[in-house]
């Protein structure tokens, strides 16, 4: 059963950290946690403001200076150090060439031509044709409409830059990911070896990949592509391995019994049977790539991200909205097309309709038409350069500005009241508690909570993370970020439980809400900032609200699934015992989906953390700001890198504690 057991030993294990609880043999976990918090508050009152390790914005520690020096020395030796000369530089060169090649093809002026090799008409035609070939005509129409809209928005070139980076990154990612996934699917040992790396790669906020990579690959398209590859490859690796593993054992055995060689059973059985699932992995890789490519604007990657970033920094809501909309449309098009691709095979198999036999000739005709369009767009200027001057985009931007102004004028009382209530009532006190307590006190509390919630192993990991956080020299900023993250997570969980329970209990609600949640998860985190910037201005709070909106869908879905997984008979038994709805929820469904709740907390925390950090762009300050400042100001580079490391440490710490707690809840 999922009900918590083994309380006594664990409570004892936690006692050294909780003086008041000493002596009592049976103390429930909530009481221990309460005791820890009380002790914390008492000590905070006594020791407030001492040993807080705060560091002013422009101040640096020795570590930061050392990293700066290291960075300088790398910069100086980039072309003489053999490691760079024959390894990093080579990689950068290859990736750079690939990116430039695709850019010349679709986005940037190529050679002597003032326009790319393929103009807008050709790209739109190609997008439609490819979508039709791998998916169906509906997504093809969607793709054509979406791509044309980029042009109307006046963002053709930027969109194509983004697309070019995505194409390159996905290509390189799949080049590695599919073979690795197959290997991990075939070999248990290799799978065990890969899993921790994949876990680590996926827990980290997109943001933190960027800084260390610039150290080796400089800023620009190459770094952006490599960061994207690292971030986007894991889903495909994981899903491919999973697909290979899940191919029916009997079928593989049947192939063996017919005398298939290893190669034959891989090519004729395992790969074809996992194709559909692998395409789903490719879908996730593409979506991850889009998220990363836009955020890579921070390290000078070209594309839509740049427009959003610049607009955000100058608080130009209209422009940010226009570019954000383009990102959203690209996300929808890419998602729909790849989803249709993974559904196509089965679909075509089951509906043997009369179009099927026309498919080949029609595809052939489509290919000819596309070739003609490409030729036209290569030859004639009207088909190469998107006509018009993006008036639609300008109109969207100004309409958004008007709306934003109206909101600010008319609703500012409401939004400000809401903002101030949360900020003053919840965020500020909590942040003060975290930042003004002595570092060792906060550290001890964290370790104690980790031990109580997740056991000794989680405690040790937490202790290590706390130690390293102190070493990074950005302890105080880390605490500010942690305060925002925790506050946002609490709100995410409240939303998650309310909506999750509703969705879990009502099929109707689920069917209505789930598509929205799915769509919300597909969006790059970046674009969430835009609407809230309009509502709440550039504050910490904007980042928190964006983080809640970003993190809540995943929590809702997990909790809804958990509630639904409670056996029907148990609910029935409770109803027949005379429970009312409230009692069923609180006494049966929520306790029985305890592991789903912890998992939701885990995912919620990770999502929120990545968003709170991105909030550094719109005045959330703290670690996110440190990282961004590190990209733009050379003397802050070391501090930025250290702040990136601190984000990683926070992420690892949250992840380990909640995962250990989830394991315990499901044990």
């Amino acid at each position: 059963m999922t009900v918590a057991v083994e309380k006594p030993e664990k409570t004892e294990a936690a006692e050294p950290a909780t003086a008041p609880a000493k002596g009592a043999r049976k103390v429930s976990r909530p009481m221990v946690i309460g005791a820890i918090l009380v002790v914390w508050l008492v000590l905070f009152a006594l020791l407030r403001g001492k040993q807080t390790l705060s560091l002013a914005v422009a101040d640096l520690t020795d570590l930061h200076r050392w990293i700066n020096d290291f960075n300088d020395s790398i910069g100086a030796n980039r072309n003489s150090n053999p490691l760079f000369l024959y390894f990093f530089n080579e990689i950068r060169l290859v990736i750079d060439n690939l990116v430039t090649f695709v850019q010349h093809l679709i986005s940037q002026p190529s050679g002597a031509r003032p326009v790319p090799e393929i103009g807008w008409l050709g790209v739109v035609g190609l997008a439609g044709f490819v979508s039709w070939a791998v998916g169906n005509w509906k997504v093809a129409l969607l793709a054509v409409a979406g791509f044309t809209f980029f042009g109307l928005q006046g963002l053709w070139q930027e969109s194509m830059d983004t697309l070019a980076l995505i194409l390159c990154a996905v290509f390189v990612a799949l080049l590695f990911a599919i073979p690795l996934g197959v290997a991990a699917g075939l070999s248990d040992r290799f799978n065990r070896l890969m899993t921790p790396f994949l876990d680590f790669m996926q827990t980290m906020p997109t943001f933190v990949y960027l800084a260390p990579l610039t150290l080796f690959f400089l800023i620009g398209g190459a770094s952006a592509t490599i960061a994207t590859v690292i971030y986007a490859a894991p889903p495909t690796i994981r899903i491919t391995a999973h697909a290979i593993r899940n191919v029916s054992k009997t079928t593989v055995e049947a192939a063996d019994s017919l005398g298939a060689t290893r190669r034959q059973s891989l090519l004729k059985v395992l790969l074809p049977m996992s194709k559909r699932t692998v395409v789903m992995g490719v879908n996730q890789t593409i979506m991850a790539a889009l998220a990363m490519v836009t955020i890579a604007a921070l390290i000078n990657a070209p594309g839509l991200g740049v427009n959003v970033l610049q607009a955000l920094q100058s608080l130009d809501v209209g422009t940010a909205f226009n570019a954000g909309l383009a990102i959203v449309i690209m996300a929808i098009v890419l998602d729909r097309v790849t989803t249709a691709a993974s559904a196509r095979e089965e679909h075509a198999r089951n509906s043997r309709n009369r179009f099927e036999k026309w498919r080949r000739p029609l595809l052939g005709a489509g290919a000819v038409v596309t070739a003609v369009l490409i030729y036209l767009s290569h030859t004639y200027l009207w088909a190469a350069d998107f006509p018009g001057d993006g008036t639609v985009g300008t109109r969207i931007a100004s309409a958004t500005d008007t709306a934003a102004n109206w909101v600010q004028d008319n609703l500012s009382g409401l939004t400000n009241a809401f903002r101030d209530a949360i900020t003053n009532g919840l965020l500020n006190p909590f942040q003060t508690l975290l930042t003004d307590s002595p570092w060792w006190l906060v550290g001890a509390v964290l370790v104690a909570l980790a031990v109580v919630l997740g056991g000794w192993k989680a405690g040790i990991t937490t202790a290590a993370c706390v130690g390293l956080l102190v070493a990074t020299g950005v302890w105080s900023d880390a605490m500010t970020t942690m305060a925002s993250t925790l506050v946002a997570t609490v709100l995410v969980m409240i939303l998650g439980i309310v909506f999750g329970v509703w969705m879990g209990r009502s099929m109707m609600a689920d069917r209505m809400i789930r598509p929205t949640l799915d769509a919300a998860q597909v969006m790059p985190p970046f674009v969430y900032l835009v609407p809230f910037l309009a509502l709440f201005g550039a504050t910490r709070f904007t980042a928190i609200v964006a983080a809640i909106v970003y993190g809540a869908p995943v929590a809702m879905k997990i909790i809804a699934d958990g509630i639904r997984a409670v056996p029907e008979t148990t609910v029935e038994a409770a109803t027949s015992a005379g429970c009312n709805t409230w009692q069923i929820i609180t006494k049966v469904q929520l306790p029985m989906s305890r592991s789903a709740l912890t998992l939701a907390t885990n995912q919620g925390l990770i999502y929120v953390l990545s968003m709170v950090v991105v909030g550094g762009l719109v005045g959330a300050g703290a670690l996110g700001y440190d990282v961004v400042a590190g990209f733009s100001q050379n003397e802050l580079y070391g501090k930025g890198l250290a702040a990136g490391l601190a984000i990683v440490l926070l992420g690892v710490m949250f992840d380990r504690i909640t995962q250990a707690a989830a394991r315990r809840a499901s044990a």
Partner: protein
Amino acid sequence: MTPTQTEVPQRRGTPQDSDGTPVISVRNLWKVFGPKADRVPESEELCGLSRRELMDRTGCTAAVRDVNFEVAPGEVFVVMGLSGSGKSTLVRCLTRLIEPTSGEVVFEGQDIRQADDKRLRDLRRRKFSMVFQHFGLLPHRRVVDNVAFGLEIRGMSKAERTKRALEVVELVGLAGYENSYPDQLSGGMQQRVGLARALAGDPDVLFFDEPFSALDPLIRRDMQNEVIRLHHEVGKTMVFITHDLSEALKLGDRILIMRDGKMVQCGTGDELVGAPADDYVREFVKDVPRGDVLTLKWIMRAPEDGDDLDGPELGPDVVVKEATRVVLAADKPVKVVENGKLLGIVGDEEILAVVAGQEGGA
């Protein structure tokens, strides 16, 4: 628990080679799962342990322990046992889908265990084929391509293998479904595809691993009849695994009963029913309608003084059920005669004892 070996009887006109060389001979076959499995068959002491004791002592599970049998050409040899008796492991050991721990599996005068990868693949491609409980079809291929899969693996050309596949599809009664995908077919039809795939390569031996356990009772009966029909038509040697005694009795020329990896008894259906080797087998065959299985030789008695010996004559291998009418219709006892020699007589009493189920365990 000494296994009882009995001679292969002439039944159902089983095509038997004149020299009687077995197709497959299994000798002292062991399969032990677990750490250092090799030592178990080698050590006399460990061999003697029960499954449970062996697990406690060594952490190993002996799935197949010291099994010996021979399969005659054209025979349907059934291995029967409850789940966990090691029957599925046994059949996989025969083609080394599971590597045996020790013993011999002789096919065409060679021990299969000594075969290298290439030879083993060749055997699997041309000599053996297997039908699985859960079909093991390829969902992304049409029926005809599934059936042709084994031929494709061998490297047969597309036209040739399609031609052959269509023939076999016809043979198993799936004509008209060549272009369907497996998930469009019912379970019984999917298993027909599995059967066709196994037959396509024209193997010498067909292995069936509980092929009909996942099917509905009615469809299962159809498929059993299908196997009987195919056996008559193509006359392949078959090794058939099942946990269903009635299926075993229906299909098997001989039946091997396994329990905890050991063979308990091996013999024809009437031998199992008429002379169970131990209480386990007796318990197993308790509910079998004896009249359907036993032959006259199991119920005849020696003629006594006063018996009329001019009644009708029947052979000793006539099934009781078929003899009932004759015996009851005659007013004198029926003589059981083989090659002109009087073996015994059967009267109304003997017949009724079996048919009315009054006879105690033999």
